[in-house]
């Protein structure tokens, strides 16, 4: 359910796509077999999935909205007592809290930097993958797949160890090979440095998905067009801008949107990197909502923060949906 899990669950290429011929066949099929008892069949078939999704996604979401207008604390949770209605109090409290705005800015800046580095790195990697020798590409692909399938928890533990002040590789390499005395340096004392380490694990985990997907998109660019453009005297940037980019643009936009969603909701990496108790300087929206709900036992505050997060993201979500509709996956 976390961001990285979703990542692992996405196929490298936009796999489920209807072949051109499917729809006429479908229509023909429906026409030929006029519904007898069958008119209800499709509804019966989607009913279990629909009910399950409604129960686990839709109802909790409605519940989040309801809760954010109440005051659900530990007592209401365990005794089942009716929670008092407080109107917009949770929201005014949160929006009036300067700490909340620090958290929002931290989340946005972290997201923007991570998405930028991921997209530039992923695009660059996918483009050089097209041009390298086969054996190098195979080696690199193997490393990408291994990194991609690494469980988030495992990846985070490794990066945490890399940054360990006493036994970490980063300090060792800096001291021994680069001549910077970093012996015993604590990377997490200064949150700016800490976020560099956290960003590294986020970007490292996201690059495989981005570069493999973009590489698949790049293989769709017709070679003849590139060659024709090159014959007509277009330079590398010209070919990219007028031939390559228009083809990969929809895929790039979709991957970028997904990255925005994942990096905005980053939770596990920070939570685990800071030993399940992130300091306030490490709060992003996900962490902040979790702490308010489970540490301060104010479930309504947590819910209200979650709702604000969803609202902040909904613009991006709508964009993503439109992108999918445009690509034609929803016919």
């Amino acid at each position, binding site marked *: 359910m976390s961001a990285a899990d979703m990542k692992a669950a996405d196929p*490298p290429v936009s796999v489920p796509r209807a072949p051109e011929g499917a729809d006429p066949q479908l229509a023909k*099929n429906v026409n030929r077999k006029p519904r007898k008892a069958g008119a209800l069949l499709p509804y019966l078939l989607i009913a279990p999935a629909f009910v*399950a999704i409604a129960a686990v996604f839709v*109802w*909790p979401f409605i519940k989040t909205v309801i809760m954010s207008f109440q005051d659900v604390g530990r007592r209401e949770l365990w005794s089942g007592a009716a929670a008092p209605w407080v109107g917009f109090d949770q929201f005014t409290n949160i929006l009036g809290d300067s700490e909340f705005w620090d958290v929002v800015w931290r989340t946005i800046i972290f997201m923007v930097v991570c998405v930028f580095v991921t997209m530039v790195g992923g695009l660059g990697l996918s483009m050089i993958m097209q041009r390298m020798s086969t054996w190098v590409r195979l080696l690199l692909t193997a490393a990408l797949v291994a990194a991609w399938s690494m469980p988030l928890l495992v990846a985070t533990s490794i990066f945490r160890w890399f940054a360990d002040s006493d036994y970490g590789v980063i300090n060792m390499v800096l001291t021994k090979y680069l001549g910077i005395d970093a012996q015993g340096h604590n990377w997490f004392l200064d949150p700016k440095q800490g976020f560099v380490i956290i960003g590294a694990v986020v970007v490292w985990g996201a690059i495989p998905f981005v570069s493999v997907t973009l590489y698949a998109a790049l293989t769709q660019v017709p070679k*003849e067009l590139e060659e024709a453009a090159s014959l007509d005297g277009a330079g590398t940037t010209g070919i990219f801008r007028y031939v390559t980019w228009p083809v990969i643009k929809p895929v790039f936009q979709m991957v970028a949107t997904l990255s925005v969603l994942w990096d905005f909701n980053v*939770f596990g990496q920070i939570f685990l990197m800071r030993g399940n108790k992130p300091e306030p300087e490490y709060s992003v929206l996900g962490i902040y909502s979790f702490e308010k709900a489970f540490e301060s036992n104010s479930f309504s505050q947590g819910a209200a923060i979650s709702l604000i*997060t969803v609202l902040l993201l909904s613009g991006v979500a709508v964009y993503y949906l439109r992108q999918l509709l445009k690509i034609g996956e929803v016919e």
Partner: protein
Amino acid sequence: MSASTPQVLRPDRKKHRIGYNIAGLVAFVLMAFPVYWLVISSLRPNAEIRSYDQTLWPSSITFDNFSRAINQPNFGTAIESSLIVCGVAVLGGMLLATIAAFAIGRFRFRGRKFFMIVLLVVQLLPPTAMLIPIYIQLNDLGGLNEYWGVIVIYLVSTLPFATWMIRGFVINIPPELEESAMVDGCSRMGAFWRVTFPLLAPGLAAASIFSLITAWNEYLLAYVVLQDNDKYTLNVWLMNFTTSRGIDYGALMAASTMIAIPVVAFFLLVQKYMATGLTSGAVKG
């Protein structure tokens, strides 16, 4: 013209290839290093792990870390929990996803597009936003600290994607195959189960492996919902190696290696099945 174009580009390409290869190798080292570190650290003697002078390669190899990890309390129950939770969630998810995918892949009906949009939109909800209401809901239903609570959530959270993916495979199988089975006396669903379902095997394999990886790697929900030590899934159990006294990196890396190996292996399988699934249009011929 097509014969002359490669000659135009070739000299240019060859000259640059060395540069691209070097860049590729640098990227390889950066991407592979954490994986390398995981594996060699699990095999390193403890003294080397707890050394102020880290080295990039181990001086000797030992399996001590693995035995420490295996002897950690609740290793067995954690494997059992992970297998039960993921196994049931994936099997149940595949069943619901397959019939729903058949519906949206084969029928045109009112509300079909709405259902498909729901499948996409729910994947955009931030997981931490859902955590609190789900926790409260499970508390009301008595699902806290119970396997079924986690199973239901995992099942449904992999459902939208699995349905979407299997649908792609359904529409690649020609409906004529079902029609001819129906001419031979099969019912609509009978034709689906006997004819289409077996042909969906690669798609089901790919979707179930993706679901399995998602469930296998999840820890936040399991961490919040499961409270007894002997119910922890492997990912929650992994937190045992992080104590207030410090982290037993050797055992943590050994345990992580054991957990990551099936995931990596499954992932490699996915690639193969995906290719098979994508070329399964061959049945059309």
